């Protein structure tokens, strides 16, 4: 059992180092260490399933070891910036002030085609619109457009915002006929008030498929199938 545990840690370190060596091009949304755990866990989990001669503990121990090691490593990276850089790497700026950093592109082994593809994926078809483009540690490209190309916001137009600075963010307060306590707490309302609002829309709370409420108490209700088909939006300021 100790051999399994220690071998698992060794394999984990080897695979993390290997993926770090492979670079960001090979990674998706996951951090390198998370990707390693995902790959290894999915592979190890099949062993005791496929081979009856393989003890269950022989499958569970490495999986638990990997998960625990990942949690401990992520906790350690929170404390140590150096360790975080070692395990996850650092974000890299590939476009700075609208100029492509060709050296960084070479380091990341990004071709122009790769970069253009990722920019197009982010909705930027013209390179001249891009102020900064950063390759995150997950391998994702984030783009900050030039000031002149920023989308117009209500603030630019000096428009009054409904729902205050935070805007209208609907929170689920009834889900499948049941009150969602966290939603009620978030909106600062009681179950009685929510039930009253449901009745005001012509339904009992248990007859609703969903009901949402915004910070300024705007209600949106959808009844369950079989009840009167009417989704009502009403202001109850």
């Amino acid at each position: 059992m100790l051999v399994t545990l220690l071998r698992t840690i060794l394999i984990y370190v080897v695979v993390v180092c290997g993926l770090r060596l492979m670079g960001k091009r090979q990674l998706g949304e996951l951090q390198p260490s998370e990707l390693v755990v995902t790959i290894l866990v999915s592979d190890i989990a099949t062993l005791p399933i496929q081979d009856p001669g393989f003890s269950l503990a022989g499958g569970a121990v490495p999986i638990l070891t990997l998960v625990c090691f990942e949690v401990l490593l992520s906790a350690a990276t929170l404390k140590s910036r150096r360790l975080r850089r070692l395990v996850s790497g650092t974000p890299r700026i590939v476009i700075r002030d609208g100029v492509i950093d060709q050296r960084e592109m070479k380091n990341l082994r990004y071709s122009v085609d790769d970069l253009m593809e990722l920019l197009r994926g982010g909705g930027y078809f013209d390179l001249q619109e891009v102020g900064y483009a950063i390759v995150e540690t997950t391998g994702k490209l984030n783009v900050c457009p030039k000031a002149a190309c920023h989308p117009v916001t209500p603030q630019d137009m000096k428009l009054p915002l409904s729902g205050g600075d935070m805007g209208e963010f609907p929170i689920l307060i009834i889900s499948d006929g049941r009150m969602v306590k966290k939603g009620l707490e978030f909106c600062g309302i009681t179950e009685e008030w929510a039930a009253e609002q449901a009745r005001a829309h012509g339904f009992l709370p248990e007859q609703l498929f969903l009901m949402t409420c915004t910070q300024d108490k705007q209600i949106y209700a959808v009844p369950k199938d079989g009840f009167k088909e009417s989704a009502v939006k009403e202001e109850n300021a």
Partner: protein
Amino acid sequence: MKRVVAAIVIMAIMLGSGTGILLWLHHGIYDLLDDIALAEQQVLEGDYETAFTTLDQAREDWREDEIYFSRLLRHRELDTVTVSLEALPSYLQYRDYASFFASTSQAKRMILHIWESELPSWNNLL
């Protein structure tokens, strides 16, 4: 923070139980090896009746241990030991000493292999 504590606890449990299992395995394995060596000695001395009794006891102990060993160890090696041990009384009954000693050697080697493969040694790790 809860996850970190849980991870530390799980790791500690696994390390502790891993060490405990190693000690328990050592006890079971070396008891069995001693029994087999004793049976071999008794056969060499011509004391077949006592050798039968020793082997019966060894097989009984192994059956009890195997139930727990099979939950933690690879089953193939355990099965090889079981098969070798089960053959021993028949060899003894029909006075087939060559096969008897071949079978005890195979059982001992496999038992030692089980023990050695569980040790956290460099040979096993690398």
